[in-house]
């Protein structure tokens, strides 16, 4: 029973593991692009958490049609929220990459330790 519960939450385990992989990359990698990749994984993990929570067992797409009664629907709200969060994530990544381009222009490197040494 314990094992079943453990496996039953597998998408939340994936969420936690992805979150930590992303976090590790942000902290441990010196390359700025790799840091941004880590940041993206970190954010995507949260998208997975939101999408997991809206699933209602046996639920279908939440489209209301005349004549259909007693139908179980999945919760559409977290999906809408995460659509917004994805947009935010994309803008952050774009801005981050733009800054990395400027860093490369001014410092000639995108390795964090070399940038620190340059100043």
């Amino acid at each position: 029973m314990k094992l079943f519960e453990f496996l039953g939450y597998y998408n939340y385990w994936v969420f936690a593991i992805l979150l930590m992989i992303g976090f590790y990359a942000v902290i441990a990698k010196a390359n700025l692009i790799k840091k941004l990749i880590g940041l993206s994984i970190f954010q995507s993990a949260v998208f997975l958490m939101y999408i997991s929570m809206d699933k209602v067992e046996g639920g279908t797409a939440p489209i209301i049609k005349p004549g259909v009664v007693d139908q179980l629907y999945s919760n559409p709200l977290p999906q809408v929220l995460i659509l917004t969060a994805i947009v935010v994530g994309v803008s952050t990544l774009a801005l981050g990459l733009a800054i990395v381009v400027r860093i490369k222009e001014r410092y000639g490197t995108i390795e964090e330790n070399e940038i620190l040494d340059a100043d």
Partner: protein
Amino acid sequence: MDFAQHLPALQVIVPLLAAPLIVLLQPRGFAWAATTATAFFSFAVSIAIAVRILAGDILRYEMGGWFAPIGIELRVDAFSAIVLLIISGAAAISLIAARNSINQQIEDHRQPLFFAAWLLAIAGLVGMVVTADAFNIFVFMEISSLAGYILIAGGPDRRTLPAVFKYLIIGTIGATFYLIGVGMIYMMTGTLNLEDMAQRVVGIEDQRPILVAAAFVFIGLALKAALFPLHVWLPNAYTHAPHMVTVFLAACGTKVAVYVLLRFQFSIFQSFGEHLLQFALFLMPLALLGIIVASLVAMFEGHLKRMLAFSSVAQIGYILMGASLMSDSGITASTLHMFNHALTKGALFLAVAKFATQYADLRIDSLKSAARSMPLTSFAFVIAGLSLIGVPGTAGFISKWQLIMAIMETGNMGFIMVAIVVISSLIAVGYIWRVIETLYAIPTDDLPDDAADVSVKPEKIDMLLIALIFTVAMNIYFGLVPGLPLTLAELSSKILLKVEF
């Protein structure tokens, strides 16, 4: 429907719409004027809101006519009103003073985009304050943060870029933590409306997810608010940002995160088990350490802007220490200090911006004898510095006094905290004095006396100087007549602690 009910929506919508207009029209030389006009309009709206709040109203606005909790509700009470005044006041004053400094630091063709980012930052910050929807707060937080990164990245020095990259990484991690926390609360309560959430949280049996969510929200917002030891992004970002951006962000940037933090911890999790006590016990040591450590670092810092940035970290410590007392007077002190510190630090950074018009290098040593050529600016710096220390007659005194009174209420243990506040004020005397001593130093004999006199040019009176003197005058005014912020702060603490009145 009466016009006043639209005020919360106008507060967000006007800067949000003005930003793309400035980019599309690309008006030559007009960008600054249009942005400043928008900021003043925002300020007028904030004042109108504050007047309504003082008359005893709570403004609610149902976005798109969808009633809460299904639709997104905007909700403004006294706590929001005082933070709105801080944001739009800081924006108006820093923008009207900004023209020359920005012309010096940002190329002409980049200015419309730069000012558009500034307007988006204002829209994001006020949005976080007026909205009553947890997810909406996340969206506005990211609007303001992204715009803030762009503003900071406008700095001419190349060291701006690594600083802003670090801020981007840390800021995004903070926002994502907040998002995880909100997701967990939504899982347990099924609502995003703050008021609705506060009611539903009480009845929940399985408390663990909510406690975990509270921790995520706390850490996420503490990162944004630069609570010690999560402040590492702040000193470099403030130091290398364009001077006027530092004025704006130092006055209101971190305070908005503190606002959301207090809203969550008090309004939502207040009656939730032992949570509030755990929160206070966790927060208090960090706040105290922040006050001491950041003040000491400021004491030994050689760069004027970085010194003031570290002092900001210490001030965030004061604000959160007041909140961690969990008492009516503690939260009053903390809200009041948000307001007064915005005035003080705004004035200090305006003085820095004015110094920067004549001194390219802002290390303290290179400002030697600056008072000879810039007497007014130096004098304004002295007064603002006194307010930072907390000398009676200035705004800084009122909030420190409130804080000490609030600590004394807690009993015997309070003396340790009072000691810490006093010691760190003495350290503040130390680092402000170091600057004053340098500013008023008698020129050394490497320049003959008559040559020094020739080099002294009369100080140019411009908008920056006028704004600086105005802000310093406000520091004195609110030090002598603290009625308005004090009333709002008292109302805020009653709202946060849910005292009926």
